[in-house]
């Protein structure tokens, strides 16, 4: 699960965020302790703590003294909002840039996106996907 591409604390923070977004870690539920994260992922506890603290600092998690760490109310919306912004920067911008290079109009692009999301909803197999491409 942990790889070498970026610092482990960032990967830990992302893993927790993923849990919040997909609902496995609902708001106001307790998240595992840093030591549990460390033991589970076989990483240094300080690194796990750093990942958790990133989320505490941004208000996604909060500490209850003596009890542990909890998902804040509104955390999911906050994560989704930020990731949406990142999605725009990381995917949409390059997409439109590339589209402009290839002379694809905004209308054509929209059609393609609709086609693609239709495929995603059909829970298409790999075969269908590659056929569509």
């Amino acid at each position, binding site marked *: 699960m*942990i*790889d*070498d*591409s*970026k*610092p*482990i*604390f960032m990967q830990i923070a992302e893993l927790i965020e993923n849990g919040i977004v997909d609902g496995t870690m609902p708001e106001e539920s307790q998240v595992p302790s*840093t*030591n549990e994260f*460390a*033991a589970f*992922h*076989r*990483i*240094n*506890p*300080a*690194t796990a703590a*750093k990942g958790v603290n990133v989320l505490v600092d941004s208000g996604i998690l909060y500490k209850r003294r003596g009890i542990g760490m909890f998902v804040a109310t509104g955390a999911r919306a906050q994560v989704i909002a930020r990731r949406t912004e990142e999605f725009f920067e990381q995917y949409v911008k*390059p997409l439109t840039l590339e589209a402009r290079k290839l002379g694809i109009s905004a209308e054509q692009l929209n059609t393609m996106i609709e086609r693609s999301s239709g495929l995603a909803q059909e829970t298409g197999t790999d075969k269908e996907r590659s056929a569509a491409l």
Partner: protein
Amino acid sequence: MNDTIVEARNLFKHYKDLNALDNVNLNLSTNRIYGLLGRNGAGKTTLMSILTAQAFASSGEALVFGASAYENDSVLSRICFIRESQKYPDDFQPQHAFRSAALFYKDWDQQFADRLAEDFQLPLKRRIKKLSRGQLSAVGVIIGLASRAELTFFDEPYLGLDAVARQLFYDRLVEDYADHPRTIILSSHLIDEVANLLEHVVVIDRGRIIMDADAEDIRGSAVTVSGSADTVDAFLMGRKVLHRETLGSLASVTVDEALNSRERAEALELGLELSPVSLQQLVVRKTMAGAGTAASGAENFTDDVMEARR
């Protein structure tokens, strides 16, 4: 707050025809897990021996808890360093070794030692002389863990241990460290296995420290770029090349630099592939770069470039 626990200043250790330590300077802080990495014979054990006053430096200064450990009970009582080739009294069984350790470490946890012995399937009542290499390593690992010394060294603790036992050691180390933070120095050349446990990495090669950085800073500090040799070389022009491999007209080049997101995008646009470099790969590359292959590597690099252009 000064949380420096180990301080080495200009340490040298000369043997007849060898500089085992060549001007080592090092600062280690409390409550961290350090990796002391390097090849066999790079000077790892020598450095640890000198820090713990088991051996003597030719020159320089080694301070632990702010003082020399030599004949200093107040410093020594907080250190545990079971070496890889540790010797034990002739008639001793593992249980005797553990009871001995209990006499000298105020935080010794006998229950923990017993549990570990069970985990490692260590026969407590067999003479240590008759143990297998792995069981011998287990004795050292158990003393190191159960002593809970403020400064604990593990000297290639995995020798002879199988994959299961090694994983067990890493797991117990993380668990126990989480409950009882202390300074751990883990000497190893199985870097991939320990990489995620480390908070800070010190790499030693032929008696010199060639890397001393936080593990998280190292992660992603280097990148391997592969693709058509021409494109790769043009893209990486002027960068610090650690390693270069070619296969026909394809090249795979590791640079000791991180790429920013714009550069990454550019690389992808050029059809180049980027892959992360593991700590082990990075250490291997850096060690080899230091071993004189660096100079020739750089020459080869230009040669290859010339060749590719012809």
